[in-house]
Each structure stands twice: as C-alpha cells, then as structure tokens.
C-alpha cells in the first residue's frame, strides 16, 4: 500500500531529499543525479553507485520517482541509460520535506543560530 499522505515518509533521509531536488528541474540518469548532488554540495557529497541505486530502488518502490520512457536523441548521450523523473507524489513529498526543513531553519534563525533575513 502506498502511503498517500506525504507526511508519513518524513523526515526524509538526506540522500533521498537530494535525489528529489536534483530531479525537480528535469529527468536525469544515474550519473546526472550524482553530478547534480556533488555540484550542489560543492563536492562534499559523493554518492557511490550501490548507495545511489539502493536509494533509487527505495524511491521507485515508494513511487517518489518513476522511470522515464523518453530518451535523448542518439548521439547526444548513451541510449541505453535509464532516466528517472520525479512523480507528483514525489514532488509533494519533497515540498513537505522542504517545508519541514524551512520550519526548522526558521526556528534556528529565531534562536539567532543563523544570520540573515528572518
């Protein structure tokens, strides 16, 4: 049974949230996701293959993401690669997680742990 309420999956493991974030602006293949995450974290977060596909397996099972049937035109990239895209459910889980994190951050700000606009 798939949980319909995004809240039941929260809090997300950081790696799951990272994958969701990297899929928000378009579908990607495995290495694309790894690169995106490395870029966003200034290379602090390196995801190894086994870990990534375990995470993707979990996310597919939970219907957070799905396999895309579109492929880039031949020549531009390897056609054999599998591409993933975020599901509507995945988006709402990502939003819920973002909101949860935002609340936490707002709390941290209120306690003067973070500088910047409140």
């Amino acid at each position, binding site marked *: 049974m798939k949980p319909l309420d995004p809240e039941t*999956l929260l809090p997300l*493991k950081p790696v799951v949230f990272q994958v969701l974030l990297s899929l928000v602006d378009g579908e990607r293949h495995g290495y694309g996701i790894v690169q995106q995450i490395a870029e966003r974290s200034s290379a602090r*977060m390196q995801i190894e293959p086994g*870990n990534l596909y*375990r995470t993707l*397996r979990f996310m597919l*099972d*939970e219907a957070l993401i799905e396999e895309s049937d579109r492929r880039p035109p031949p020549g531009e990239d390897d056609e054999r690669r599998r591409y993933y895209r975020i599901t509507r459910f995945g988006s709402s889980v990502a939003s819920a997680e973002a909101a949860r994190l935002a609340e936490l951050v707002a709390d941290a700000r209120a306690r003067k742990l973070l500088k910047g606009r409140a």
Partner: protein
Amino acid sequence: MIDTRRTIGERFYRRLLALFPPAFRHRFAADLVELFRDKRRAAAARGRLALAAFWIGVVADAAVSALAERFRRQPAATGTRSLSMQGFSQDLRYAIRMIMRRPALSIVIVLTLALGIGANTAIFSLVNTVLLRQLPYPDADRLVAIWERQLDQSGGERPVRPANFFEWRGRSTSFEDVAWSRFGNFILTGDGEPESVPGYRFSANMLDVLGVQPALGRGFRADEDTPGGPRVAILGDKLWRRRYAADPGILGRSITLSGDSYTVIGVMPPDFKHPERAEIWTPVALSQEEAASRTRTVLRLIGRLKSGISHDVAQAEIAGLYRELAERYPDLNKGLTASLERVGSTGDAKPLLLILFAGVGFVLLIACANVANLLLADAAARRRELAVRGALGARRSRVVRQLLTESLLLALAGGALGAFVTWWMRDGLIVLFPSNIANLNLPLVERIDVGPGVFVFALLVSLSTGLVFGLLPAWQAVRSNLQGALKDDSRGGSRSRRTHAVLVVAEVALSVVLLAGALLMVQSFVHVQRLQFGFDVDHVLTGRVILPDHRYSDVAKVERFARDLIPRLQAIPGVEAAGLTNFLPLSGWSGGTPFSIEGQPPLTRAEQPSAGYQVATETYFRAMGIRLVSGRIFTDRDRQNAPPVVAINETLARRYWPGRNPVGTRVVVDFRSGPVVHEVVGIVADVKAFGLEEPATGEMYFSYWQQPDWVIGIALRTARDPSLLARQLREAVWSVDREQPVTHVLTMSGLAAESIAFRRMGMLLAGGFGVLALTLAAIGIYGVLSYSVSRRTREIGVRVALGATSREVAALVVRESLTMTAVGIVVGLAAAAGLTRFLASILFEVQPGDPRTYAAAGVILVAVAFVATWLPARRAASVDPLVALRAE
C-alpha cells in the same frame, strides 16, 4: 594500457555486483556499471590518487550496499534503511581502534595477507610484463610473422625463400601489405671502440606495415631499398643514447658500418624492438639474383592482415598458395608450406606463468581462509560487545559496515606491505628470462615493469581479499541473534565450529593441490637436470667473432685469421685447449645443408635429407669435451687440398645409417658452390645445442680448414675458473686484428644455467608456494584446534573428572584434527586429479596423474597436521578438571 585496465577493472566490478540479491541485480546491474564507468572516468581524469580513492570507495560501497540490500526488512514500510556516506570516518576511527586493541592478532593477519597479496602481485607483475604487454604497434593483432616449414613438421620454422615470397605476394588477398627483412650484423667503427651491433635490413614498407615511425627523422624511401641505392641507416634508441649521447644532430651524419659509410636518417622510439635485440636498421635492397633465389631461406616476413580477415582465413589462403608452388616447382617446394604466427607471441613463457598465477591465487585463498578463521574466532569473542551495541540501537547494517571496514583496512595494510615488497624485489624475477640465449622460445625481458598497473592490481586484490575474508564473520555476526548473545556466551558454538572446520578442510584441500603441482614440477626439473648436454659444461669459456666481408674478402684471409688466432689462444696461461667452430651450442645460431648418401638412389631437392652445418677445428672437440664415438677426429692434415672429410653425430648416424657403420662411407654435400663428395671419418656424441629439453638434431661437422667460416665461435678449455680469462680472450683476438669486435664472452656453465633458469625458477616459485601453503594450513589447523580446546575446556574437565585418561583426551583432539585433514586431503586429491592436467605442457617425463606424487602430497599433509595438533592436544591432556569446572 588504459583499455586493458578498463576491462579488468570493469570485469572486477561486475563480479562484485554478484553480492547483491538477484532481483536488485537484474534491475540495476547495467546502470550500476554505467555509473561506475562514468565515475571512474572522472576520477581517472583527476589523477592516480583520485583513482585509488575511487576504487576504495566503490568497492566498500558495493559490499556494504549489497549486504544492506540483502538484510533489508521486507517490505520497506516506512523510511529507508539505506546507508549514507556520513559516519564513514566514524567507522574508520572505530576500525583503527579495534585493530590497535589487538596488536598481535592484527600483525598476524597483516603479515599473512602481505605474503598472499605480495606473492600475487609479484607474479602479476610478470604476467603484466610478459603476457599483457602491449606491442607498440597500432592494431597489433593484425600483424603476423610468416614462416616456411615442412608439412611433416620436420626441421622447424624457417625464414622464407625469396622467389616463393615474391611469387605469392601478388596473388595473396588477405594482407594489406607484407614487408620483408633479413638479418644483418654490422661492425660499427669510428666514434670509439669497434662494436658489433645486431641489426636488421628492412624493406622500405616495413615501418608502414608495423605502423610505426621513427621518433626522429624519417623511414626508408623506396629508392633507398634498391641495390646500389643511397646507403642510409636508422638507429635504435639505446644505441643512439649509448654511442651518440642522444644527440639530435645525428640526423644527416655519416657513420661507418662494416667499412661502408651510411647516412643516419632516423632514430626509432625507445619501445621499438623489432626484432628483439636489433639496434640498427638499413634497407634490405635485394639484388635481382637474391630476389630470385629458390633455395636460400633468408626472408623474415611481417604481414598486416586486412581488417576483417581472420588469422585462420589468411593461414588457409597461404597454405593454398604453397600447394600451388609445390605443383609448379615440385623439385624444390614439395612438402613445403608456410604458417602464420602472431607477432609478439610469448612462446613457452605463457603456460608456466599462467600456472604460477593460478598457484599463487590458491595461496591467497588459503591465506583468506586463515584470516577468516582468526576473525571468526575473534568475532565470537566480541559477541558480547556487538550485542551491547545492538541493544543500544545500532542497526545491523551499521555493525556489518564496521566489521567490513575493519577487514578492508587490514587487507589494505597487508596489500600495501605486499606491493611494497614486490616493488622492492622487482629485479629478482628477471632471472627467469635468459638474456644471452636466443633460441629458447622465451621472450626477451629486460626489466619487470612494476608500474601503476601492478599497483591497481594489488589494490583490487587487497579489496577483494578483504571482502572474501571479511564477509563471513560479518555475515555470522548479523545472522546470530544479537540479543541472544547477551544471555549466554557459549551456545551457538556448534555451528561456528562447523564453519571453522569447513575453512580448515578447504585450506588442506587447496594445499594438497598446490603441493601435488609443486612436486610434479620438482620432479620434472630433476629429470631435466639429469640429462646431459653432450659436452663438458664446466671450465669452458666461449666468445663470438663475426669477420666483416669488407676486410675479409676471401676465404684465404679468413683462414689466415684462424691460423693466427689459435696459437695465441693456446698461449694464454691456464688454457688447456682452444678450438674454433661456427655455431656454438646454446648460442641460438644454427644452419643446415642438404646432402645425399653415395650409392643410394638420387632424390629431388625437396626430398633430400638435411643436416646441421657445423665447422670445427680439430681442437674444438677437446676444448668442448665432445666425446668421439667411433672413427677419428680431424687432424691438421684435413686441410684445403686434402680429401674432404666430415664427422657426423650419433643422431644423424642412427637416422640415415640404421644398423650400419657410417665410418668410411661417402656423402655428397650440396654446398652453395656445388656438390662435394665427403668421406665420413668419425662419429661424435650428440650435443644439446638448443637446451636440455630439445632433442638433438642430426649434425655434420666439417673441418674448419676445408670450410673456413666468417662466423667464428671460440671455445677455451681452462684449468681454473674460465671467467677469469675473458680479458685474455679478447686481447688474443685483438692481437690478430685490432679492429675486430668480440661479443658474448661467456662461460658455458653460465649459459647452461641460463638455459634451464626458466624451469628452475618456475620450480622454485611453485615449491615456495607449496611450502607457504603448508605453513598457512598448519597455522590454520593449529588455530582451530586451540580455539576448539579452549571452548571445550569445561567438557574436557567433565570427561577427566569422570575418569578419562589424558591419553584419551589427547586422542579426542587428534581425532578432530585427523577428520578435518582426511576430508581435506580427499577433496584436495580429487581436485588435483582434475587440475594437474593443466600442468601437462610444462612437465618433463612425469605424468600429471602420477600416483606416487599424490601419495607424497597426502603423507606430507598428514605429517604437517600432526605437528600442528601437538600443542593443542597437549593442552587438552593437561586440563585440570578442578580448574576447568570452577571456571564457569
């Protein structure tokens, strides 16, 4: 380079994926490999360190993720149990702490692994240098050497007769192009001492066929490859550096080769070795007459197959073309064919290296079993600690990760130590490959390359070793109920004892296989060593001289040189006899001549028998210690105008004069100048000119004075250590001709040792692996029995309290040991029976299934098991029931 490493690394990674549950693997394996490739490419671009880090990360990740995936709670209802990268440094710190806390155990493990991994790395460095070496030619797999040979395989492979080649060249469709070359030795004078330089004469298209260009300058032009064309030369990199201090200004300069002036037009790159040992190249420039010769076997051909044409197709085409030639010229070509050989073939080195590689893999497996046993025993001791961690909320995957981190760390430490030792000893293995003997069918290896490829291999082996011996304890730790361990410390022992026993059985079985193989190789070596060379190897010094045509333009001059040389050689203090020949045994040189026996029906040229062509002075046989079997040796009366005489060896006598005495009969020998009738005056003993294992060939010895030769092999029999006379030998030659180079001044005993070095070193390595395997197996048996005795102290105490004698108690331990050993030996012998047949090609006069060898291997293992059982059995026998029972 990059390409092979890619496939090896990738294959390794694919194997690793087998750790994942099948469902996961089917779904994601292709993507995992794809991602692996991408990441590796990125890491490789950042340098070697990044690549090493990548490998460690990727292997650890595969192991941990696979275990986590296997132990995942089904179905995943909430949250994910996947592992993140955070906490890795924590695991690392924890692992280091655990390793440091048990220094003795850790040192034993690291040393065991260093031995196992080091031995593997060393053998891999050989395999890498010899078998995996890349030829410096593009599409090298399309290059073939072409040799003529007899259809009945007699006489071996010979260079090609020019007229045959030029006739089929135009009709063959398999090749893009075929280039031809001939041997050419040069004497280099000017700019220093006279030097004899091994060279080759290339057709103008040779470098294009090989696909290489000079590093400096240009290759030969067609107009230079014609008789009377401009004299030009290309230098080898080594010669250029040695003699001309790597001066780029060498281009356009003229050098003197064998008396003629040549213009240097190019310098080849350092890795260009075609053929091996050649250091200078000139155009072959065949004359019309040379190109039309149907009898002289002189051309060495290299062809480049058209892309898409297989080796077999080309071979079939060539065979067909030779059948046509045989029909057209039955007189000369009947029974003749040609065969293709891949360029860069590794000859006899391959089977032995692969066998050693397999053997050393067994050693590593035994080492792994040992370490796994040690870690299992240790994990049992840590059950409480692990249980506490479980109770405090540590997830199973986390525990697995920590145990694996620990074993990977141990493996890396062992691997680093092993790789370092390999690198340090890298020159030790070079003795496998003879540098002075050219005809053993072994590749010329100048140095063992211990480079990045070898270190990547050591890293991969270390990581997989860490996984192999680390997974079992980790698995058991997870499988056993963590909470259960808190309650009772001594239950669950029977299953773990069975695991220990299975590991020991495996160790014993592997040792039996290794030992049986090693014993077979030792016996082969003993058999080979018992053979005789047919001459007295000790106290002989040899040297080679090739008189250049330009200064020795006729036979009279050659003869005078030899006449002058012999007394000067004999005058050297300590020389008992001095003789000359053309082709010294073990020198790699040989030649043949067709002949017929007078009074027998005439034969066509193709049917005519042929004998090895040797010339010798009357003193040569005494200097070499070659025995006279019957008749007489030459005398100094057998000279130019005396009746021609010949001595033959036993093999030739047996083959062509079966049951008759050849002495006194006459043979017609077809010299290039025409047939000459010779009287057979004597029979001498066979000489193993191509090494002990090669059968002797039929040889004819002509009197040097009747057939003076430009190629001269000097043999000196000395009273003392012959190597001390090397200087005097050179000076004697120079006292006759100041400009004459002398090469290969070597002792016969040294050459003889080199000729069996490959087999000896192979035997020593295999024997070493056998001893290593026995030692490890003994440690394994000892460890398991000690552990078992300590676990059963209470049980033994009860038995003793109930009246068991110390003898009976010791018997208990011995029985346990013998059961494991016996099962191991049976399994091992069965495996050996299956596996030793792969040794067949390198064994000599011993059968792979030799029952005595198997029996010996079994007996040795039983003996070793008894020794390993001694201490634990004594400890069990001395158990004090009062102490044992109070302990609980």
